[in-house]
């Protein structure tokens, strides 16, 4: 056994990130590490690479116990890591990146020619024909990935951790990368492969380990497992156990069909983000967007709200074309969007709760027509009460609130606008369980008042409970729409697994 981890534990305040996890890696195998958000993958990797210090457990490498305390120490021990966002410097040449920190020197000065030779030597066998004296940034991300791998292998040489290396590559580039990975495997390296693309896992990996909620669920040979079983492991449900959503939903569905369509999106898409998709929005309905991480859920929402402008497609309502190419246009068209990453895209940390609530409303009214202070206070108080935002007062800076309360403030910002179409990306992420139910109830209230809501969530049970219909995404495509009695967690899982329940599989990814 090249690398073995025995009952590794790591806790953060409030959460147990890893709970006695075991993990084995053999030389000459590609071992996938899988799990949804918060499963503990990245914590495990960070413990391995020395970015985190473990609380308990043992790590054995080549029969010796190790406890790396920094990335460079892990590197010296033989564990190299390559991340999705290439952690090399695009402004240095390929040769400088490859040899950084170990430049060949003569009389104390870096020997440029020897450096070039050394870099070319390091790249040999990777099938790259590139000029190492050019800036790394000159080359595509795929080439940069391979350069990063070459550096990691040369520096470490035993274990290579690939953390979502394919997330921003196209199909041809993935093939190139996989050739490299296979080559390294055959040379006897142990490779840990983290990816959200299950097709890729089935293509390249020998074994896989699934983590969920900080625990190891299983380790299996890939050949002995099918997609459905894998997804069941990842999501933690046995299909038989899934409670059917049943009849109530069915009648609701008839109602949904009879509702008036308020918005129709056609062929919205952008290369590299999401394949073109159609979306019809009816009055007062909740549309769920389901899919694994990286399937294009958030990207779909961003295209709808104009955060990234769609390359193709159009939107229209009863009155004609609807502009949504930028957030401002989308807002004018009556859209709202509570993004996934609250801290960077949602809250304005130093502003008060009141100011955060009225911000979008104020932006739409224009700067010349300030909302009177009394009205601001009234709005703030109204939403603090209605959403039960826990804050000592409306003037407290939003940055000082808990995650759930911040989320409620962002929601309040959009509710104050009274949009006709509200997009909520992971509205319950990172907030406590009590608040989950409140937010679900709130979504119901909103739709009863006629608002249409699009909800993105990794919590399929929640999605099923909240949605009138669910659109399932896989590999950046909208692959299936579930309506009526199909709105159930097991159907979502099947659709993600790509099991052909119906001919929707013509859209099947062909990786």
């Amino acid at each position, binding site marked *: 056994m090249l690398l073995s981890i025995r009952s590794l534990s790591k806790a953060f305040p409030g959460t147990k990130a890893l709970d006695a996890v075991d993990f084995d890696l053999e030389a000459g195998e590609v071992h996938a590490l899988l799990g949804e958000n918060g499963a503990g993958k990245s914590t495990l990797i960070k413990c391995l690479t020395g970015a985190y210090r473990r609380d308990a457990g043992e790590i054995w490498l080549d029969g010796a116990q190790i406890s790396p305390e920094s*990335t*460079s120490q892990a590197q010296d021990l033989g564990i190299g890591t390559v991340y999705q966002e290439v*952690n*090399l*410097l*695009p*402004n*240095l*040449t390929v040769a*400088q990146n490859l040899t*950084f*920190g170990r*430049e060949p*020197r003569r009389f*104390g*000065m*870096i020997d*440029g020619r020897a450096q070039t030779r050394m870099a070319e030597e390091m790249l040999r066998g990777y099938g790259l024909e590139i*000029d190492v*004296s*050019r*800036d790394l*940034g*000159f*080359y*595509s*991300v795929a080439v*940069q990935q391979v350069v990063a791998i070459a550096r990691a292998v040369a520096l470490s040489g035993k274990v290579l951790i690939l953390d979502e290396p394919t997330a921003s590559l196209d199909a041809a580039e993935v093939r190139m990368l996989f050739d490299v990975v296979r080559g390294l495997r055959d040379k006897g390296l142990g490779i840990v492969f983290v990816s959200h693309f299950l097709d890729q896992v089935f293509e390249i990996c020998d074994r896989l380990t699934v983590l969920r909620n900080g625990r190891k669920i299983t380790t299996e040979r890939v050949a002995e497992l099918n997609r459905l079983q894998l997804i069941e492991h990842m999501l933690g449900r046995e299909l038989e156990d899934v409670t059917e959503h049943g009849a109530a939903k069915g009648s609701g569905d008839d109602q949904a069909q009879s509702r008036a369509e308020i918005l129709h999106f056609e062929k919205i898409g952008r290369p590299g983000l999401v394949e073109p998709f159609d979306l019809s929005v009816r009055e007062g309905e909740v549309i769920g967007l389901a899919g694994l991480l990286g399937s294009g859920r958030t990207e779909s929402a961003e295209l709808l709200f104009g955060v990234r402008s769609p390359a193709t497609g159009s939107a229209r309502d009863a009155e004609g074309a609807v502009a949504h190419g930028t957030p401002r246009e989308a807002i004018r068209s009556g859209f709202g969007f509570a993004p996934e990453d609250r801290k960077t895209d949602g809250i304005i940390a130093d502003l008060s709760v009141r100011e955060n609530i009225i911000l979008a409303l104020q932006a739409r009214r224009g700067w010349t027509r300030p909302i009177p202070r009394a009205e601001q206070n009234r709005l703030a108080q109204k939403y603090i009460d209605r959403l039960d935002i826990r804050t000592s007062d409306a003037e407290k800076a939003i940055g000082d609130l808990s995650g759930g309360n911040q989320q409620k403030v962002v929601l309040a910002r959009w509710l104050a606008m009274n949009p006709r179409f509200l997009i909520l990306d992971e509205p319950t992420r990172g907030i406590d369980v009590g608040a989950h139910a409140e937010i679900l109830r709130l979504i119901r209230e909103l739709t009863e008042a006629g608002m249409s809501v699009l909800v993105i969530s990794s919590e399929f049970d929640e999605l099923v409970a909240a949605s009138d219909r669910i659109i399932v995404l896989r590999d950046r495509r909208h692959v299936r729409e579930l309506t009526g009695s199909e709105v159930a967690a097991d159907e979502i899982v099947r659709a993600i697994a790509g099991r052909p329940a119906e001919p929707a599989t013509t859209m099947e990814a062909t990786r």
Partner: protein
Amino acid sequence: MSVNPRLYPLLATIGIFIAAYIVCWLQFPYMLSTRVAGNLLTDNAYLGIVAVGMTLVILSGGIDLSVGSVIAFSGVFIAVVLRETGLHPLIVFAMLLSITTAFGAAMGGIIHGLAMPPFIVTLAGMFLARGASYMLTIDSVPISDPFYEALKDAYWLMPGKGRLTFIGILMLLSVAVGALIAHRTRFGASVFAIGGGEHTARLMGVRVGPVTVGIYAFSGFMAGLSGIVFSIYTGSGYPLATVGAELTAIAAVVIGGTLLTGGAGYMVGTLFGVLTMGLIQTYIVFDGSLSSWWAKIVIGVLLLLFILLQRGLLRVTALRA
């Protein structure tokens, strides 16, 4: 083999310099003489030396606003110490260089330690150094030392009767040493790495703190050396001298093709940036009818040109990635 794109700004710099020189030569054939060339080096020696330090700072993504004041402080310090004591100028030089290097190192330490923007920290340094030179004297203090006279008159007579002075040679040497440090040492590689992205640099094993201190210490050292050269050039120390030299140096660095946001550039480009700016001045002197303000406008236009060129290059590389 096609030209490496990382060389584009440098080639543009050299190209502009050569084109400008040709324009000057066509109009005033005398411009192409070793005399003019020698004077170009001598007149811009102090600027070239301080720009070498500035280049390293800018390559790391920082900025050093204190250098103009440090040059003035150096001149005043030397003049006053020589007047008050009987020390040999070389000893005074050593004292001065230790002071300015330590001063730079301290600023680097504050920038790293308190995680403050270099802009504001070196602004404080600028006030401090200027204030310190005022405290030494408020008058222009002449330097009369035989050793100084010797340094001032030291030159190598080039063919064509042009004088390559000691301070001109010192500038060329500074550029050479600066180029070695920036492009041929691990310290230099770390500077580029920090300029490319501090976080990534740290992940690649750069010790950001010591390197930052080193960068500003180097800039302080170069500012001190530039102060020595300036005092040789003017034969005096004056606390009001070289006001705004930091901006001229920054402009020279940018016109020299170094990316103002850090991470890309060549030390030799800075030399050409300095010479281009000097050439504009020389041309105005030769012309006689043109006013000096044109120099500022042309430099401004060149600045804009290079900033836009690099922005365009960034965009091109971003599209490829």
